[in-house]
């Protein structure tokens, strides 16, 4: 549990950080550090250069931009929980943030680190896919935007090119009166999900008008459960619709077996999380 040697850099601007990442050998950006540093202690990651992004003010904070909410990549989970903008426009983000790790980790852990690391166990990627979030990244070749739904390619593999930094996340605020829920089953405080489901929906005349469903830690990457969402649109979330949604969600899951349980269990409770998230989201919708 002792890391090898590395050099530490703390740039004050995004341009400087991008430049360091492009020019230094074997360099990695450091956000909250709650994934990277344990990997370095185990020597599973041995970067020669760490580029600490904490000195870059431009990467922090939450703001509104028209109908969009812009979240700086270095905004901590704690800051998300304290943000009035998030509380009003994206309450599901706070519900999700609250089930990530524990208060100590949330003081350090950032939303950017959570989504950019590509860890299937992280909670934010599935939620970002559900919300249709756009990731803004910057590298030596300039800035570009990637949809969250196009970002995840495999466990720890993402659409980020070498040297690119995630700078902010842009989310179109869901309509007023939307329903939402993040249902997470875990063994204890601090654990990754055994299975989790994010739901954002709108209701109209007692029937589901729009719906998106995301799944956490039930495959190599976070998943958007399109068919499951389709199965409830136009229904009143009766038993048959809920069962159809759970079955459609289970069909796209391929969880690994681990200490949280064998694949068949995680798939089954994945379906349960979808059902419960749908029910809770519908209760909240106005």
């Amino acid at each position, binding site marked *: *549990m*002792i*890391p*090898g*040697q590395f050099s530490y850099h703390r740039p004050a601007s995004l341009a400087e950080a991008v430049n360091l990442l492009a020019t230094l050998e074997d360099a990695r950006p450091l956000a909250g550090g709650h994934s990277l540093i344990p990997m370095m202690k185990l*020597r599973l990651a041995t970067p020669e250069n760490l580029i600490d992004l904490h000195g870059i003010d431009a990467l922090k904070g939450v703001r509104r931009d028209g109908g969009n909410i812009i979240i700086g990549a270095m905004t901590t989970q704690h800051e998300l929980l304290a943000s009035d903008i998030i509380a009003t426009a994206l309450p599901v983000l706070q519900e999700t943030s609250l089930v990530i790790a*524990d208060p100590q980790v949330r003081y350090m852990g950032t939303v950017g680190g959570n989504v950019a690391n590509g860890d299937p166990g992280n909670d934010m990627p599935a939620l970002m896919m559900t919300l249709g979030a756009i990731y803004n990244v910057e590298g030596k070749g300039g800035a570009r935007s990637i949809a969250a739904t196009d970002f995840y390619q495999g466990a720890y593999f993402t659409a980020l090119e070498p040297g690119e930094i995630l700078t902010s996340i842009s989310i179109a605020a869901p309509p007023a009166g939307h329903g939402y829920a993040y249902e997470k*089953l875990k*063994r*204890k*405080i*601090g*654990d*990754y999900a*055994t299975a989790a489901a994010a739901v954002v929906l709108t209701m109209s005349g007692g029937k589901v008008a729009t719906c998106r469903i995301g799944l956490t830690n039930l495959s190599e990457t976070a998943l958007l459960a399109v068919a499951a969402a389709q199965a409830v649109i136009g229904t009143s979330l009766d038993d048959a619709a809920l*069962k159809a949604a*759970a*079955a459609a969600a*289970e*069909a796209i899951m391929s969880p690994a077996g*681990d*200490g*949280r*349980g*064998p*694949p*068949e*269990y*995680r*798939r*089954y*409770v*994945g*379906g*349960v999380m979808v059902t419960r998230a749908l029910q809770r989201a519908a209760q909240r919708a106005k």
Partner: protein
Amino acid sequence: MNDMTPTREEREARLEGMGCKRKRVEDVRFTQGKGNYVDDVKLPGMLHGDFVRSPHAHARVKSINTEKALKVPGVLAVLTAETLKTVNLAWMPTLAGDVQMVLADGKVLFQNQEVAFVVATDRYAADDGINAVEVEYEALPPLIDPFKAMDADAPVLREDIKDKKDGAHGPRKHHNHIFEWTVGDKDLTDAAFNKADVKIKELISYQRVHPSPLETCQCVCSFDKITGELTIYGTFQAPHVIRTVVALIAKLPEQKIHVISPDIGGGFGNKVGAYPGYICAAVATIVTGKPVKWVEDRMENLTTTSFARDYHMTAEIAATKDGKVTGLRVHVLADHGAFDACADPSKWPAGFFNIVTGSYDFPVSHLAVDGVYTNKAPGGVAYRCSFRVTEAAYCIERAMDILAQKLGMDPAELRLKNFIRPEQFPYHSALGWEYDSGDYHTAMKKAMETTRYSELRQEQAAKRAAFKRGETREIMGIGVSFFTEIVGAGPSKNCDILGIAMFDSCEIRMHPTGAGVARMGSKSQGQGHETTWAQIIATEIGIPADNIKVEEGNTDTAPYGLGTYGSRSTPVAGAAIAMAARKIRAKAQMIAAYKLEVHEDDLEWDIDGFRVKGLPEKFLGMKDICWIAYNTPPPGMEPGLEAVSYYDPPNMTYPFGAYICVMDIDVDTGVYKVRRFYALDDCGTRINPMIIEGQVHGGLTEAFAIAMGQEIHYDKEGNVLGGSFMDFFLPTAYETPHWETDFTVTPSPHHPIGAKGVGESPNVGGVPAFSNAVNDAFSFLGATHIQMPHDHWRNWKAARDLGVIKGAGAAA
């Protein structure tokens, strides 16, 4: 008397003696972060050692190349088995009469086994050195399943003893067999089963777990080449035993070895044994002449030093059709890992597992335990229990529930029917113990009344009916557990560690101003000895507890003792304290008689001094007696006021308790909620009720962790899983249930103050209470026994196996 004269109550209160909820004096430093732990010890020029460990569970070590490692900046030395052989320390004796490799000698027998020890100027350099050591392995087939250990074609694990027909505990049946231990009357037990109306038989496994104290095992060894003296700071639960063992195996004169256990951050049995890290650090300091520190990290702690349990118990009970037990037969397959490094008294290869008849009046019983080797880490320590008592309590408490289910009887009613009756004490059990005292019926009935047990059963019946009608997916379990512990090892006639009798000791030295210092052979790891030991002395000699300083853990100053584990400190050291205090009081009485000009027999003890019988105004207080003892003692009497007592207990003590757990389980996720947990403990005389309550809270939390999630699991290749707190279940305050505590008091008749010990009771009684609650919840669906740990997915699996999970995923 004027108004200023303190009342008797005020005098009592000022002492803060036995029965007082005295606040923990050690917490002044702990709550301010000012404790002094081994890792706080920093000596000039100190080096750091760390291990190269095996990635394989079973492999031949073809070669170890240390050349590159020695070129790493800061690396000074790399020890291997070859180095250690030059000082005859490549292997070390275990507490259980086996031998254990200190560093891999020719082969490795478990994953993460110690292969080489890198010594460097700091921990970073040591770790760089570890990564530069090149070890060539030839993988061998691993043996993981203990049930296959004695197959004819099972691989030979221990080549060093493969032809040895006898081990430390008698004949060996197979090259992977360690011992067979039998107790009881087989023929009479067989006869009882032959004529039984009702019989049950079940394989009850208690999974491999780990004590996981927050502070891992660690030491600093410092050898002075000029004087030849070796000082060892370590996380030792038994510092004197470490000193003697080091003297014996390192061939150093014992007076030149100084062992110091500073503050210890939890032990729970993990810090009783001797580990390769200690030996390597000691050799490294002798080789380099500089102090060497070794500190385990969390993964090393969980995967190498001292697992607990791993007992596979086949329990059978014979009974009459109306529920009177007539016989108990138990066979245990004990998985000891690669070396038998159990920390039991030496003559007890399965500890005190023969307490397995529990709280019940079994006329006959027979027990057989087979210990086997597997490719897993060695250990088998008493994780917050007296040697293998928690395994025994789990076995009998589960088996009694299974019998109740078969008979269609309520489990509490079955227990009441079979308890040893109060008039049977001292009670001789069928497996050889003499229970000192108990009143089980009173405790059980109090537990049932307080929890409104019969109403709980009615509620459960209603919920079961609702579940069957499809109105709820939640099931309710009520876990009843009644345990009898056996603690206070122990009487020298049957307890020793490597020949060292298991007495304990206390030295009290009073100062002239009415204060004093007390030193013991015990060693607190969080139990609060600095607080409670002073309370015993306060009551015995009438000096306020605040005026007594308690010291433990320095072998140069403390009298020889066997340390703290197995709830032995109050039964053994606590008795030594009372006896030493009584020696002080006896001398004080002689002084008081002289000063008050009466015969000693004309004096009576009165809270904090002596009073002449019938003349209440003639009184001499202990504070004054302390001054007199030094400065104006009676003619012919030696000055001074101090005493030493070594206490060899006449018997064990037998704390007991009744626990009831109420749990709800969501069958669709396996998520459980402990709605209520009631724990009644009878630990005899209660020294500090607040500390007892704290001990019960801690022990119940560990029991909860074990029953509901803890497991050190190995895959088929012998890779150890669960080696971090991500997977090894250490509940936080959020997961931990609320505890309700209660008590009865049945003093031990043979202990000087009637105390029995309590630290481990809640773990012993708690595990079966949780497990019985889960099993009780599922029993109406047809379950007989569901193995621990009862984590979410296993609860779900139980539901699925019982046919109440249907849906897409369930069919997979």
